[in-house]
């Protein structure tokens, strides 16, 4: 079956612009995660959705970052007034629901965002 997909694969924008990054999780996965991966670093947690609600958004760096998941499936990460420091690969992952640590997170290929 299809894995997690993310679009676009690459996004180049200018400082100050607004961008939207899309994630399509694996069908049936109610848990969805966004991470940010800077060059040479491990993924850094941004936000976690359980269904339609953001259960934990403590990793969002500031109020320029916002994410939605209105129907409990596709999610969009929105970044306002982009800054050069926002340049990174944004990863999305999904998993089955529940608190079990054995619910594997499946990652998408990421969106590489470059802010000029």
């Amino acid at each position: 079956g299809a894995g997690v997909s993310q679009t676009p694969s690459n996004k180049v924008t200018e400082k100050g612009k607004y961008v939207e990054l899309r994630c399509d999780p694996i069908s049936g996965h109610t848990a969805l995660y966004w991470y940010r991966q800077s060059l040479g670093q491990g993924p850094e947690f941004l936000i976690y959705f359980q269904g339609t609600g953001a259960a934990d958004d403590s990793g969002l760096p500031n109020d320029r970052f916002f994410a939605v998941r209105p129907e409990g499936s596709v999610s969009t990460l929105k970044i306002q007034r982009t800054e050069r420091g926002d340049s990174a690969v944004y990863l999305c992952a999904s998993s089955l629901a529940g608190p079990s640590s054995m619910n594997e997170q499946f990652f998408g290929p990421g969106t590489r965002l470059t802010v000029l």
Partner: protein
Amino acid sequence: QQQVKQSPQSLIVQKGGISIINCAYENTAFDYFPWYQQFPGKGPALLIAIRPDVSEKKEGRFTISFNKSAKQFSLHIMDSQPGDSATYFCAASNPLYNFNKFYFGSGTKLNVKP
């Protein structure tokens, strides 16, 4: 403040050799320790994981060794192959959360020479 520290940053191993990557953590509440493998242009993929109630877990050529008292865990890749060349990340999660809020290490870029 990095919750999980990983070393080395890069590693070169000859084909057939053993690759060893180390991670250390401070938060004793962590209770799940996965290793992820990432190829260029791809997202990380789960390789193997361990919980602190065991000291070792082996799956094929991949073994995790866990030292709870030292708060360290390591990945051993036996009989390393050129296809193993990738970036490896260790991670840890905290059961206080009702989901896997992973803290990742900074990654180790492994190059296995033919």
